[in-house]
């Protein structure tokens, strides 16, 4: 259990090259003790590199890592007391399930009774009790992944448990239960959990803080709500949420309004200090509704299709050359192909150079 500080950390796999390619651009970040973090981003954006830097498998090209304000940048993995679970189950084939779970404690010379107590408690949580004495290699893939997870959780005093897409191989039903278990473990033991994933739903349901990454860059850190309502960049808006945020390329036409397809849309953003007039207007489809009796921020659209997605309806419509998507409740009647939609001003995000103003 520790507070983890990453200060000005960056990493390149070819640091001696005159033009090093950075897998991870310089960033600083603090992971508070006992919180749940999710690192979210598309494949190859540096998520795993970040985890490996924290666990010490990779030494960063620059920057320091601090556990509870103690510099551990030069400390070896085995001395950092950290747990890491990989995407695919890693088990010690030649050992039984019990020996697998006990291994991290054994390596650190815990007493036999302590090992026994911890292994049993973890096995209980993960439903592995009945397999404790069978050889680990005889188990199925998801049971093996449970062992990997169990080895991560068996030490109570770890600085953090780092998980690199640990539930990929686990079937959906169990996945859901495990995520809840992990949350419970976090609440019970106040273990810092860091969870890497490319699945936004997983990140949103699991973590109270999400770190969004793209191409080696930390784009935004925040709660699920913040990421959803105020994406820092158009990338976050696009990446988070299903469907992606509606983005319209347009121009600022006054201090607080933009023009889309000849309609003036009011926003709550001050647009007087723009360098260029070119901006992007972003709005979540969840906030766009069919106009009732509002009298501004209304747009006329041609409905192209309406998809009934069970708990909501998704309207895809044309607004001039733009496509606009709106999520409405199931009960909403869509009167005809010509509809007036309301874009709430307080929900509008304006981006200049793809960054939120």
């Amino acid at each position, binding site marked *: 259990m520790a507070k983890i500080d990453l200060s000005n950390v960056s990493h390149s796999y070819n640091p001696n090259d005159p033009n090093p390619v950075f897998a991870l651009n310089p960033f600083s970040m603090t992971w508070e003790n006992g919180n749940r973090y999710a690192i979210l981003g598309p494949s190859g954006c540096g998520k795993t590199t970040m985890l490996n830097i924290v*666990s010490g*498998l990779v030494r960063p090209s620059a920057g320091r890592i601090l556990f509870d304000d103690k510099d551990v940048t030069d400390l070896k993995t*085995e001395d950092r007391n950290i747990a*890491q679970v990989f995407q695919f189950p*890693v*088990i*010690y084939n030649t050992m039984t399930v019990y020996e697998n779970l006990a291994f*991290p404690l054994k*390596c650190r010379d815990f007493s036999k009774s302590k090992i026994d107590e911890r292994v049993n408690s973890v096995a209980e949580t993960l439903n592995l009790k009945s397999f404790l004495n069978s050889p680990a290699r005889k188990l199925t893939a998801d049971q093996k992944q449970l062992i990997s997870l169990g*080895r991560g959780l068996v030490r109570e005093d770890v600085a953090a448990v780092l998980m690199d897409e640990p539930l990929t191989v686990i079937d959906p039903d169990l996945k859901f239960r495990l995520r809840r278990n992990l949350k419970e473990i976090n609440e019970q033991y106040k273990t810092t959990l860091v969870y890497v994933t490319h699945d936004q739903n997983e990140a949103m349901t699991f973590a109270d803080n999400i770190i969004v990454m793209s191409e080696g860059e930390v784009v935004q850190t925040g709660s699920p709500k913040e990421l959803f309502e105020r994406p820092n960049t158009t990338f976050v808006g696009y990446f988070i949420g299903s469907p992606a945020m509606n983005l319209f390329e347009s121009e600022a036409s006054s201090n607080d309004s933009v023009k889309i397809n000849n309609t003036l849309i009011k926003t709550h953003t001050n647009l007087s200090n723009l360098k260029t007039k070119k901006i992007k207007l972003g709005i979540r489809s969840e906030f766009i509704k069919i106009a009732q009796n509002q009298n501004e921020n209304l747009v006329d659209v041609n409905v192209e299709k309406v998809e009934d997605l069970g708990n909501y309806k998704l309207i895809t419509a044309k607004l001039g050359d733009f496509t606009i998507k709106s999520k409405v409740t199931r009960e909403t009647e869509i009167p005809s192909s010509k509809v007036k939609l309301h874009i709430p001003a307080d929900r509008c995000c304006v981006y200049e150079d793809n960054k939120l103003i």
Partner: protein
Amino acid sequence: MNKLYIFLKYFFIVVWTVFVVAPFLWALTTSFKDFQSVNGGVTYIPWVDFEPNLEGWKVLIKSPAKGGVDIIEPYFNSMFVTCTASLISIILGTLSAYALSRYTFKAGFVKNNDITFFFISQRIMPPIVLSIPFFLFLSSINLLDSLTGLIVVYIVLLMPIAVWIMVDFFNKVPREIDETALIDGCNPYQAFLKVVLPNSIPGLIVAGMFCIIFGWIDFFFAFILTFTEVQLLPVKIVALNSSVTPWWSLSASALVSVAPLIIVAFIVERYLSKGNLSGAIK
């Protein structure tokens, strides 16, 4: 179509079996023949074509003083040299293979793959190229005609095989295994000994098998590096071939010399077919 396939399949299996088994049958029948039945024309079936006797086998354990050939001492010499050299090669080879698989080495333009290739290249060269250097080397350290000298030479010959097989094997053992062990609190040595090595037993067995085979069957170096003091089995068997070749004892000793390899093959086959070769991941 299907019938033709089955016919061809079994046809080739039969042809191949004959090809493989016939020499053994030939050696087996010959080992029970006497001078008359070998030289008197073609004979195949015992008790019908010829009267079997155990003379060919008996000479093998008789001392030379009593007119025998005594292969027991060369047999144990061969075993000792092969096993010792294989064991040392496997230990050294495994350690270097692990290093080559997990760590990055660089000396000028020489990198990991070049080092691995250097090991393998020792086996590309015809062994005869090494005969004079080995002879001079062993004579300079007074190990000519000794078991120790042979062991040294065999290590040089067998270690590349061990390195080659084990590098390939370790490359297939996922790095995450080592990394997990480090995270679980092992130092790199413990990670190797407690986690990676137990997971590599199938590779060790295969490498060991190859070392034993190549060590056991070597005739060339055993022939040029020994004279009177020690003799290995292949040299002894070839030496049986005198002016009047005793085909019966030659066959018997050939069979005896193949026997350990057959046993090794059976054990390994048993082990491999149990599916123990599958990796640690997934």
